[in-house]
């Protein structure tokens, strides 16, 4: 199975999570204190896997009969997923009790979804991608409907399931066509023979279907219609995971499989498609977000527009784009986790206080929470010195290097529009008096998670070099 101990060591993060899932099942079955043990076990497991990935980031290798890659960007992605999941777990501890979805399975399904993401990022074979994608997606469908008694959660779950299955259909069909033309599912083989394969129309059709399927998963226009409803209906912490880990995993899979294609001899073949979905996502997301009253829906549209910025990187398709996309995803993950985390604290029982007007006067009621959310909003809007700005800056470098200056220009235009709705939250928090004095209960677990995320956003913004240098070493 493994050629040497080193290989075992390289895939250790995936093994940690896999074993952890089994242990968690045992804890849930046999321990009476599982509601305390499970979340903390998950947090430490995620942290262990994440730190291990970051520490051994330099050991690049391909293991398990050319099925998985480790090291380099794969490890960076693993760190993003696991640290993000640790944050989500901390946010969930008190939230899911308030929300009324406390089941032990919650944490275990969270773990399986992370396992799926990690497989997607590490995949060296189309089947592994599919396997990871399905593990992640099925876990997501269940998480969305965790509270069976809530009508809108059921609706979100079903909608997510139907459209997700539809998207998976595209991906499987794409894989079938690619297999049909390349006679293999090995990504390395396909990458090496792109210039030959690209002459085959079947192959191009396969790649296009594959891309369309993933366009659903990254929530790009016009494959976005599930996003607002699912985010709104799902538990807030779960929506946080969808919008960060889910999106990052889908991008990691695209990078793993297709990036060599965008960067290769037929680089311009898919640029029109990617550029079009990027522009449409950016503008649709930014403009429609302005009209939202529900903060979760607003964040959903913001997520669509961020998918657009990331797609600029895909369209650019050069080495800077990979680094830019990885950096952007890291920054975006922690920005969004913190934003959803704060939303989950403000949210009352029975999903009240989700309207953006609930944030009026937060600046004087909860100064720390308001300051954290303000930083996140500035960062999402792409204002320096926060991480969101640097992500955009790097993506624009990639676009301009690939002679896509017009795409960068449209990107900044959409950014300028998006400033309006991000700032609206800041305006409400600081410049408006509060409308009704509902109780806001904060808890230490969630605050630790939120402060950790915000600190990362600030540090990545001021010292982006730490991550950039790490990522560029492996491209």
């Amino acid at each position, binding site marked *: 199975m493994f050629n040497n101990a080193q290989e075992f060591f390289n895939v250790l993060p995936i093994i940690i999570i896999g074993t952890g899932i089994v242990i968690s099942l045992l804890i849930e079955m046999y321990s009476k204190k599982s509601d305390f043990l499970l979340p903390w076990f998950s947090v430490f497991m995620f942290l262990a896997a994440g730190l291990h990935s970051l520490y051994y980031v330099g050991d690049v290798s391909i293991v398990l009969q050319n099925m998985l890659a480790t090291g380099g960007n794969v490890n960076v992605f693993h760190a993003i997923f696991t640290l993000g999941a640790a944050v989500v777990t901390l946010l969930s501890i008190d939230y899911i009790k308030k929300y009324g979805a406390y089941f032990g399975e919650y944490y275990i399904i969270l773990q399986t979804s992370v396992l799926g993401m990690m497989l997607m990022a590490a995949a060296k074979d189309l089947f592994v991608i599919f396997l990871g994608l399905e593990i992640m997606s099925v876990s997501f469908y269940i998480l969305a409907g965790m509270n069976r008694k809530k009508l809108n959660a059921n609706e979100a779950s079903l909608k997510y399931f139907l459209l997700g299955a539809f998207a998976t259909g595209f991906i499987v069909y794409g894989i079938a066509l690619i297999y049909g033309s390349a006679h293999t599912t090995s990504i390395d083989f396909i990458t090496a023979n792109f210039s030959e394969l690209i002459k085959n129309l079947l192959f191009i059709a396969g790649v296009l279907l594959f891309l369309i399927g993933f366009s659903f998963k990254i929530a790009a226009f016009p494959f976005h219609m599930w996003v607002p409803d699912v985010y709104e209906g799902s538990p807030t912490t779960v929506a946080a995971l969808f919008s960060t880990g889910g999106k990052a995993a889908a991008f990691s899979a695209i990078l793993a499989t297709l990036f060599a294609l965008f960067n290769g001899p037929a680089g311009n073949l898919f640029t029109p498609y990617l550029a079009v979905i990027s522009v449409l996502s950016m503008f649709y997301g930014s403009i429609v977000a302005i009209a939202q009253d529900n903060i979760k829906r607003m964040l959903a549209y913001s997520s669509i527009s961020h998918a657009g910025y990331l797609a600029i990187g895909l369209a650019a398709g050069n080495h800077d784009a990979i680094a830019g996309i990885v950096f952007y995803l890291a920054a975006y993950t922690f920005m969004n986790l913190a934003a959803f985390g704060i939303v989950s604290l403000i949210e009352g029982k029975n999903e009240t206080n989700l309207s953006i007007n609930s944030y009026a006067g937060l600046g004087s009621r909860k100064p720390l929470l308001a300051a954290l959310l303000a930083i996140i909003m500035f960062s999402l809007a792409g204002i*320096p010195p926060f991480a969101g700005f640097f992500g955009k800056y790097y993506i624009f470098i990639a676009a*301009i290097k690939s002679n896509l200056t017009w795409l960068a220009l449209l990107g900044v235009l959409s950014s300028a529009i998006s400033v*309006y709705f991000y700032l609206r939250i800041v305006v409400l928090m600081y410049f408006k008096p509060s409308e009704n004095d509902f109780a806001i209960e904060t808890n230490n677990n969630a605050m630790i998670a939120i402060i950790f995320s915000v600190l990362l956003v600030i540090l990545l913004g001021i010292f982006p070099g730490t991550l950039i240098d790490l990522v560029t070493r492996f491209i």
Partner: protein
Amino acid sequence: MEQNSLLTYLILIPLIGSFLILFIKNDQPNLIRYAAVGISTIAFLLSLVIYFQFDSANSDFQFINKIEWIKGLNIHYHVGIDGMSLLLVLLTTFLTPLTLISSWSGIESKVKEFTFFFLMLEVGMLGVFISLDLFLFYIFWEAMLIPMYFIIGIWGGKERVYAAIKFFIYTMFGSLLMLVAIVWLAVYAIGPLGYFTTNLIELYSVAPQIPMNIQIWMFLAFAFSFAIKVPLFPLHTWLPDAHVQAPTAGSVILAGVLLKMGTYGLLRFNLPLFPEASIAAAPYISVLAVIGIIYGALVAMVQTDVKKLVAYSSVSHLGFVVLGIFAMTQESIQGAVIQMVNHGLSTGALFLLVGVIYERTHTREIADYGGIAKIVPVFSFAFMFASLSSVGLPGLNGFVGEFLILLGSFQSPILNSWWYTVFASSGVIFAAVYLLWMYQRVVFGPVTNQKLVGLKDMNAREIFVLAPIFIFIVWIGIYPGTFLKVSDRSTAKVVKQMYNPVKVSPVELGLNQYLSK
């Protein structure tokens, strides 16, 4: 290369200070105020040390501090100053403590937050003036919006939210285009230099080689961003809103320093980086500047609100500065630089005085005043003084700058027409009309509003704030040489870079020491 970290300390003092202030308890507002004034005074003293160590006979950037920041992108923390930036740095550090003292009684609520944002604003402004890396510059340029946004939005007047958002989105929109241009420039440098760079000094020798058809777009992207900040007609509409709604301290810094960031940007980036495009665009931009001078003055004339009147006078005065920059002679650019300082002092003083009287009467309507000369003689004198300085009375500072600008634009080979000067001069006359007319209506005549009876005159603190400003107003008016000398060599260098951009090699410009690698 020799490193000098004085400039770094200069930004670190308010930066660290602002965070230290967060640890003071809210129930001690006076301690917070003393601490903030103390911190900004230390920064001012340090900037004086820099001034005395500055070698004004040297046209190079001095006090350079260059530290690797983002290795993968060849981005450095790279700061340094020449004469132009030194004057603006001094203006910033000089005005900040004075404004903080002036807001002693004006800002009553959330004192801690106010001083935090104010010191952050100082960090941003200083950073803009000393950055020698376009990326670093952009970070300061944008980050500075956040504190100003809060200062207008939290402590401003009735329409503060509208004004704050308008200010933010206007500026942000302009600067995002500049961001694309910055990235484009850095990518373009890969051609001639072989590596991606945002180092301004390296780009000085690269950017002028950009073919004209692209250069003009780069020029426009930068100029658009700066023109919004200046603000150049017709992009000025955010300014009256922001000025009128901002608290006094905010208006002083907005007029005193923030607007100068726009003109500084034109001078530091547009002219030397895109000389051909600048020459081609000079007549058009100068026309806009002249329209701004006359339009600002005419609109100021019909204002009924004192603060709005002063705000529109800024549009008019900054028009002079832009005209001076785009006349592109040594005299006019020297005039523009000194006029930036002058406007900071005289308009700053006017806003402070409007704030002084507003705190007492809570009205800014000209019609509500009249005949206060006998009630508040000290105030009336100070107001006269500041108004005359703004009008450009010979012997006071405003005259020097306007005279040099008009002289330079008259001789300008680029504009090549004396009509610019003729129309611009009319702005000086209009300035006298609107300011003195306003002064007459506010200060002289019979007392019509009984609330004004018993008005208290300026107190010692308020006099203490204005006295240093007045000293400099007279100093520049009588002996401008002290200040003109500082920027003389660096403006000369800008002119030199303008007219022989490509022919002058980096070595000739004395830039060889910067060409790393």
